[in-house]
């Protein structure tokens, strides 16, 4: 315990902190400029000077550790004089162009001068001149205003880990500059922008368009892009979003954001938004009214239900919609349409893997706090680049690495290239075998754990049939690292789920998790993949993860919902697609998704949807899928409605309404309208009303309220009862992967700057990354005579596309990567798939590709 005196006030500290923090704890404010609570102290501005007894000079409070018995004075005539002097220094070369500077009103320098500074300046010499730089598409850089506090640099190095900027020049010529000089060419997280105290780094998205004090509404909500669910603040003026900012210390992201979260909000104001319902008349989609459109939907669905039975109807829910939307949607499909055919795009990865993991290891196995990553000693990263899929989770891995954790990567993970301690790169599409080899090796040392007999049995089966070891560099070290680690986290991306026998990779990861007692994290592309499952948007489970085939559960829901839930098993996503092709599914209702774009083999999917008798699409945009619909219903999006989302930690969070949208209706509302017209009444007053019902009917969500959720700490298993899982399917021992001997294979790139349908309608993200590029290893490119920016024709069995080349030496095998985020050029239009027999996820491996320079 440390006790010191600050301004005659006795302060007792729990743990050692700086004098500055000690003063803050005591409610005493000391002015600062270079200090930022998220960053390491720097001691550059000298504004925080204080008097300390028995120390001859003034001391900077931000760098001085509080010590027992210290006597500190934070205000005095002398101190004021120094602060005034320092502020005068800061202004001598400052342009003082506050009337023109976007930062005015929330500028720390302005506030400090106002409070502590001189009223007149004595500087009569010439000021330093540096023109404002607009060479970057996103940031304006004004180095006349820079106070060289290095907050941006410390942020970029120590928190973001991008090391993209630095202070160039020396002394009076110091200025912040990106290493790539003109454009930032970085991860565009904007976290440097957050911490710049002055108008030296500015966002061009809203430059000169408003003043901070003109914001008329400010709403704390969560991001709409990925499964991390970062907290952010939306600032609104005249019903339009002016900007999105984080708040220091707030949320799972602790005040950091990624490029999508910060700059990807403009889609919501896009000109492309649907404004009225559309109805297909004479083969063409035409504007219609809500009453006509809803009438047609109810009529047609009722008709098909009458003639072909409920099982001819299917629904696709959305990992971008809220828990409430998805809950109402699955209830509608089950109760109003009479079908269990309900699934989502998440079947391509997250939902497929998550279910199998829970079957093997019990409910909640994938439920771990992102924070926990920082405290791991070994982090094993498999199947994707966390820094691109879930950027903020990726930052925790970088942080762990700075704290000395071992980061071991299987395959490629560009964003961890400077942070990994070991990388093992197997030949293409053989990661699964490496995992199995690891599992066999680990179990050889650890033996059976005896807790999950089925899993032990599966591992034993695997060990028995396992033949020979793989000769891959680093694999032994990897095994030893895992075996010797006192605390391991496994971060599992969906790349290996999307393989011909992806369930084997899932089983191997489950086995390793089990034997190593590791924490398991699943990467999640979309904001509500977990919530969608928990809300019952899966064919075989009711809300709260209750299996449909357990009678007691079904009975309970039937009582609550007032009617029978269909007996027949539901179809999974790809079974629905097959059903559409073979006419066993006649009507499909898609809420908030774009399968034609988001599923592999676009042509095949399109044909399936075209074969339907009736297709309804509810969306923000006239997407590739909506263009095929018979009825298109305009929905409301992020910031236009309230609802809860469940992130990949299974934390439930509130996404709040911030603006009044001109048109569109909440997804749940549209659905309950249709449902009512079909004779199954759903009368919810608002989203909270729906959550109240969920809390009532689902034992997982027992007693859950919006009040509790809004506190941000609503963690699994809430107050509910999770189920213990039981094993259904052991890994099928399919033959080892065939040899992949082609020169190049095409694989999916998950880019940091895009998510697909939404991000390509966000101008800022389009500026950062305007077109898809084919990522290829430098040595391979040289062999083909390809240079950065050259265009190539990319040809697969399914089709061909023309894209520019971008060299990426972090790709260490003969894969070439293409993203699936751009209209008309999506990778998925070039790929076919086979279904995994266990998880029902699409396998997209072994796609040979020919590259021809144009």
């Amino acid at each position, binding site marked *: 315990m440390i006790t010191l005196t600050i301004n005659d006030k006795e302060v007792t500290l729990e743990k050692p902190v700086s004098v500055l923090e000690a003063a803050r704890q005591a409610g005493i404010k000391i002015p600062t400029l270079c200090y930022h609570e998220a960053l390491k*102290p*720097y*001691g*550059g*501005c*000298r*504004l925080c*000077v204080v008097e300390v007894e028995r120390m001859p*000079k*003034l001391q900077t409070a931000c*760098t001085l*550790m509080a010590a027992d018995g210290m006597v500190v004075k934070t205000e005095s005539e002398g101190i004021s*004089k*120094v602060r005034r*002097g*320092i502020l*005068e*220094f*800061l202004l*001598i*070369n400052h342009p003082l162009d506050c009337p023109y500077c976007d930062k005015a009103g929330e500028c720390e320098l302005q506030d400090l001068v106002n409070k502590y500074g001189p009223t007149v300046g*004595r*500087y*009569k*010499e*010439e000021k330093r001149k540096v023109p404002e730089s607009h060479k970057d598409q996103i940031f304006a850089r004004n180095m006349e205003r820079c*106070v*060289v506090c290095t907050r941006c640099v410390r942020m970029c190095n120590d928190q973001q880990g991008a090391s993209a900027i*630095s*202070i160039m*020049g*020396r*002394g*009076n*010529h*110091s200025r912040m500059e990106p290493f790539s000089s003109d454009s930032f060419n970085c991860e565009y997280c904007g976290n440097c922008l957050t911490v710049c105290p002055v108008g030296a780094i500015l966002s061009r998205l809203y430059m000169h368009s408003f003043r901070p004090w003109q914001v008329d509404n400010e709403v704390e909500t969560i991001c709409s892009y990925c499964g991390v669910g970062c907290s952010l603040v939306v600032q609104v003026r005249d019903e339009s979003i002016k900007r999105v900012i984080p708040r220091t210390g707030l949320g799972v992201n602790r005040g950091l954001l990624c490029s999508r979260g910060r700059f990807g909000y403009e889609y919501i104001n896009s000109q492309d938004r649907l404004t009225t319902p559309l109805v297909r008349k004479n083969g063409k989609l035409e504007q219609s009214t809500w009453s006509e459109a809803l009438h047609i939907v109810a009529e047609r669905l009722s008709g098909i239900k009458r003639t072909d039975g409920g099982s001819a109807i299917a629904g696709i829910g959305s990992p971008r919609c809220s828990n409430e939307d998805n809950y109402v949607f699955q209830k509608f499909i089950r109760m109003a349409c009479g079908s269990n055919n309900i699934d989502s795009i998440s079947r391509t990865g997250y939902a497929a893997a998550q279910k199998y993991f829970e079957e093997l290891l019990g409910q909640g196995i994938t439920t771990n706090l992102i924070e926990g990553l920082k405290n791991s000693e070994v982090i094993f990263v498999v199947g994707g680049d966390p820094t691109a899929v879930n950027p903020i989770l990726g930052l925790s891995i970088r942080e762990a690495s700075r704290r000395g954790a071992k980061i071991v990567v299987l395959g490629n993970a560009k964003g961890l290239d400077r942070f990994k301690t070991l990388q093992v790169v197997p030949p293409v599409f053989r990661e699964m075998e490496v995992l199995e080899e690891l599992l066999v090796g680990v179990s050889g040392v650890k033996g059976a754990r005896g807790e999950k007999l089925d899993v032990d049995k599966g591992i034993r089966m695997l060990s028995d049939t396992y033949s020979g070891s793989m000769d891959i560099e680093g694999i032994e070290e990897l095994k030893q690292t895992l075996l010797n680690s006192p605390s391991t986290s496994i971060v599992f991306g969906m790349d290996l789920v999307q393989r011909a026998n992806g369930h084997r990779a899932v089983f191997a990861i489950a086995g390793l998790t089990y034997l190593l007692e590791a924490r398991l994290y699943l990467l999640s592309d979309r904001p509500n993949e977990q919530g969608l499952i928990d809300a019952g948007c899966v064919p075989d489970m009711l809300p709260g993860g209750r299996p449909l085939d357990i009678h007691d559960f079904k009975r309970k829901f039937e009582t609550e919902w007032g009617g029978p839930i269909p007996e027949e098993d539901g179809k999974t996503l790809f079974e629905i697609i097959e059903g559409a092709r073979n006419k066993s599914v006649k009507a499909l209702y898609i809420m908030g998704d774009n399968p034609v774009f988001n599923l592999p083999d676009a042509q095949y999917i399109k044909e399936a949807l075209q074969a339907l008798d009736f297709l309804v699409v509810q969306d923000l945009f006239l997407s590739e899928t909506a263009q095929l619909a018979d009825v298109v219903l305009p929905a409301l999006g992020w910031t236009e409605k309230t609802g809860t989302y469940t992130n990949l930690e299974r934390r439930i969070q509130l996404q709040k309404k911030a603006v009044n949208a001109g048109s569109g209706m909440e997804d749940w509302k549209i659905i309950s309208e249709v449902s009512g017209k079909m004779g199954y009444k759903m009368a919810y007053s608002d989203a909270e009303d729906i959550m109240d019902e969920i809390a009532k009917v689902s034992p997982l969500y027992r007693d859950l309220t919006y009040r509790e959720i809004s506190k941000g700490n609503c963690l699994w298993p809430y107050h509910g009862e999770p189920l213990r899982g039981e094993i259904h399917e052991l890994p099928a021992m399919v033959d080892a992967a065939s040899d992949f001997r082609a020169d190049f294979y095409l694989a999916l790139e998950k880019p940091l700057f895009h998510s697909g349908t939404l991000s390509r309608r966000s101008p800022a993200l389009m500026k950062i990354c305007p077109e898809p590029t084919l990522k290829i290893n430098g040595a391979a490119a040289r062999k083909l005579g390809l240079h950065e920016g050259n265009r190539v024709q990319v040809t697969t069995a399914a089709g061909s596309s023309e894209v520019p080349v971008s060299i990426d030496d972090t790709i260490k095998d003969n894969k070439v990567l293409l993203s699936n985020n751009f209209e008309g050029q999506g990778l998925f239009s070039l790929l076919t798939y086979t279904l995994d027999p266990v998880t029902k996820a699409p396998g997209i491996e072994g796609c040979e590709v020919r590259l021809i320079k144009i």
Partner: protein
Amino acid sequence: MEEIKRSGLRGRGGAGFPTGMKWSFAKADPKFPKYLLCNADEGEPGTFKDRPILEKNPHLLIEGMVISGYVLGSEYGYIYLRGEYPAAADILNAAIKQAYEANYLGDNINGKGVKFHLAVHQGAGAYICGEETALIESIEGKKGQPRNKPPFPVNVGAWSMPTIVNNVETLSNLPYIIEIGGEAYSNIGSKECPGPKLFCVSGHVKKPGVYELPMGTNLKDIIYIHAGGIRDGGKLKAVIPGGISTPVLPADAIDCAMDFVAMPKAGSMLGSGAVIVMDDSVCMVRVAYRALKFFEHESCGKCVPCREGTDWLRKVLARVEKGKGKDGDIELLSDIAEIMMGRTFCPLGDGAAGVVMGMIKHFKNEFEEHIKNGRCALSC
């Protein structure tokens, strides 16, 4: 270690910190490896005392470093050499090669089971890299800017390991101490800071050069006896006794012992022992301006008072020196210097402020004349 402590050796890099004490801190830290860095940055204007050791007797330094390495349990040493000393780099590298060949450096020195490796690291021309923590940053490959203390380099230094930074001259005293013993060494020169000291005398003296004299030799004697007095019949006007960052002394204040204890009492500092002698042909406003030009150029930019203060001081001094001074400029200069003094992150800023304060204190009339007459009375 005891022998070093007994000798009373104090660092010759400028601050005069007791070497034995510094070493015992680093030795007490259980972390390993420990690094020994020799500060050969010698960038302070007026200072050229380390150069003769580096160029004329590099083996003395190497021997000193091997001894230090042995005492400290350090197996790796670096000589951080001023970028503008390319000849010294060649000489040092050749000497290190010879030492390796003769097995005075290596994994098993002279078969005694002592390991010590040594390499030269050339700086890129920044004065601030002579400050020990900036030197460490620089040797780590980062931008040369001082670090926050504590933690001190003896605990968390180069690559976060316990690190000793010592001046060339300091380290070169070691073979001698070992040879004659700490006790005998402590009897040379001043009582509180014993030993021989290199004084480098420049300016208007008859015999400028480097003089090895006992610590505490009177400044007057250094100038008039050893360096032969003022040249060309000139009259002494002022002396900067310890390198440009030590305050100036007027001609009538130079009867003082040159050591770390007596000099502060005389109103200046021993610094590096670089005695800059100026006769009455020198304009002190111009000296102040040139000094500030140096400091402004060399300010690393980390802290506000130094970064902005040196810029402002230089600009005002430039004006005054050109005869464009205004009423109030002297007060302004004093004010700026006063805000800076003691508030900068490292002593470089203090040095800059000290120059201006010293000049105004002793030669205010010259500033006033510049402002009043619009030109320099000496028309230089």
